[in-house]
């Protein structure tokens, strides 16, 4: 097990290093000068030079890369060019929205998808199965930003129950914060739930046909007991893997939904930072997000190993 951890840690580190190098090189090639963007069209060359020097942009590329990497190793992620505050602080502020939002969405989508998927599998071929899977098909097809706009029209304008956009911050209390996250979490969760329900249904149907389920039934277990105690746990591996993938997506892949609801999350931070050539923020975020995806995948592997002992064997 220790060897397994060490191997994984080594893979993790080298992936991160590769990611950092790739993003740095790509941003060097990308046209656009952060200083010019900040000072606009009226800036004089000497002002631009002063700002470039102030930002440390006048150093050669290799030196900037090394400064950045060694800074991170010391826990210093640098100062955002545009916001002029430490990147670590920006990430902390934005994570306070993105992490709870992703968790809320994942909990909602799992809570909806697993019962629906298992139910549909247990009643495979019935009208209710067809209806549920039809609904799931629609859910897969609906883009989340469009669903978001529909939700706003219904629950913020037609029925003024929830705010249309924005996030007051957790400083205003738990409920105002949660209230602002309900609609975006739903907009994110429903399409994800649709995909998850279909995968759950397929996986459960597959295990229902396995010998051990027949054996369980032959031992005298009821259909329900055989389903929940034997078929569902064995069907969970693809489901957990998918949840892991969805969580990685939800952390940063929510740019569009964050725009629709004007949420100050990580996705929008990356988007703005790219548009404003806030290079240091882009670099840090790409590395952080790559790190979190690797970490989530690692956690999923561990979870899969916990569910299925066969996966713990080396070489498996």
């Amino acid at each position, binding site marked *: 097990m220790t060897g397994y951890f060490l191997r994984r840690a080594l893979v993790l580190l080298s992936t991160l290093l590769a990611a950092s190098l790739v993003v740095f090189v790509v941003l060097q090639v990308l046209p656009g000068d952060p200083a010019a963007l900040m000072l606009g*069209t009226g800036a004089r060359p000497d002002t631009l030079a*002063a700002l470039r020097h102030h930002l440390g942009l006048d150093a050669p590329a290799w030196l900037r890369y090394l400064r950045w990497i060694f800074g991170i190793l010391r826990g210093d992620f640098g100062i955002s060019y545009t916001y002029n505050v430490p990147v670590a602080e920006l990430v902390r502020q934005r994570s306070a929205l993105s992490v709870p939002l992703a968790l809320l969405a994942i909990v909602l989508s799992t809570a909806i998808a697993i019962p629906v998927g298992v139910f549909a599998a247990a009643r495979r071929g019935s009208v209710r199965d067809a209806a549920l899977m039809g609904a799931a098909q629609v859910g897969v097809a609906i883009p989340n930003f469009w669903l978001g706009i529909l939700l706003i029209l219904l629950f913020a304008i037609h029925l*003024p129950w929830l705010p249309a956009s924005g996030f007051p911050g957790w400083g205003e209390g738990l409920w105002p914060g949660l209230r602002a996250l309900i609609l975006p979490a739903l907009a994110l969760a429903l399409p994800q739930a649709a995909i998850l329900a279909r995968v759950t249904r397929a996986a459960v149907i597959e295990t229902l046909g396995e010998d051990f389920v027949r054996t369980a039934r032959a031992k005298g277990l009821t259909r329900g007991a055989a389903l929940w105690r034997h078929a569902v746990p064995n069907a969970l591996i693809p489901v957990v893997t998918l949840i892991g993938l969805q969580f990685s997506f939800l952390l940063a892949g929510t740019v569009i939904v964050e725009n629709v609801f004007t949420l100050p999350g990580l996705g929008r931070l990356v988007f703005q930072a790219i548009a404003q050539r806030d290079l240091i923020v882009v670099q840090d975020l790409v590395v952080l997000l790559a790190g979190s995806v690797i970490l989530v995948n690692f956690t999923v592997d561990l979870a899969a190993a916990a569910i299925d002992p066969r996966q713990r064997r080396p070489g498996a």
Partner: protein
Amino acid sequence: MTRMLLAVALGATLLAGAAQAKDTLTVGMVLEPPHLDPTAGAASAIREVTYGNIYEGLTRIDHRGEVRPALAESWSISPDGLTYKFRLIGGVKFHDGTPFDCSIVKFSYERAVAPDSVNAQKQLFEPIESTTCPDPLTAVVKLKRPTSLFLFDMAWGDAVMISPKSAATNKTNPVGTGPFRFKQWIKGDRVEMVRNPDYWGAQPKLKAVTFKFIADPAAATAAVLAGDIDAFPLFPAPEAIDQFKSDPRFAVHIGTTEGKTILALNNARKPFDDIRVRRALAYAIDRKALIDAAQSGYGKPIGSHYVPTDPGYVDLTGVYPYDPAKAKALLAEAGIKPGTEITIMLPPPSYARRGGEVIAAMLDQVGIKAKLVPIEWAQWLDQVFMRSDFDATIISHTEARDLDIYARDKYYFNYHSPQYKALYQKFVEAIDPKTQLDLIGQLQKKLADDEPNVFLFALAKVGVANAKLRGLWDNDPLPANVVAGVSWAD
């Protein structure tokens, strides 16, 4: 009976409480400012939050674009136009308690021209030779040469008064002398400010003001409809305006801006070095149809690099009326074959992206194939503005009265005219206001004659607000949302 009276009285009290005028305001903006120091960055959003609210300069620009006294209550100018003597308002304090006096003026102006200055409009301060303080409430500014727009320039957001104590931290914790104090900034969402009880001028009616940032047009519409936003002065969804016009809860404010939208041409590149080609393009574009199609009809045609609301405006929209036949003839004369390709760079705003489609169709009518290349701001600044590597681009120049850009030695569209330069120099050195206005007219005419760029239209300010709001600026003489005079009608 008594009980009923009581109930009525109670009801009346409750109603009175509910009807009490609101004293907070939430203003919507598309872009969030990168930081809150207008002396260290070009972004309009910085000024739209802070100008006249948090920071003030010696002079200010009012809603009509005229120069007014601000922290200088009066001034006198020497006959040679070289010495400005400002009389400062006494007893003014910054939000952190620092007293405002001449030393602040000296500090602010000297900081802007220092070698390590990152002031985005450093050239505004370049004419200043020295700032001296004969007494704490008198500031004497000596210029190297007469500068006709000096008082106007010193009203820009880039020239606001900064306290040395807070200069380094204004980006995240802005401290000024204005009617509102900074309270907090929830990054990515909003900036909050509260009334400054120690303000030297008239107390604002509003107790608190929030600027909220919503980039998505659909989300902006939803937020105004839901009442989350009271006013959206530069509303990003012109197609939704009719919906607000027909709703009595809202008022639509149509005003003017300083935005001169042009089809900028690279005068150093063939075929735009030929005046006949530039004039042909001007004849080929139907400005009215362009405004209707790309701007939902909001905006006014212009015939030079000057907007109708600025002093000394001359209507030159008749110089190149829409005339495709004449355009074709001029192109043929210049030896441009039908089917010639040009590339038009389109930055993100809709005037460029939508306008580009319309202009391409119009150019097609006269035999020019326009290839449209959408690019983002960073790339536009780098490739078009800094390196002049382009054929044509659509861009709105939003700086007020910026006729000087055509007199610069190096500017991205590469217009070089010794006559224009001489004329501009005469304008800069003119002291008599009448001569100034006359020269402004001559400058506009010279540009319309040479047509270095195709002048299209003045960008309109299209805003949506709660119908009960009073005192919002309809026009945008400079990037600002001055809310000191805003109140709610009962």
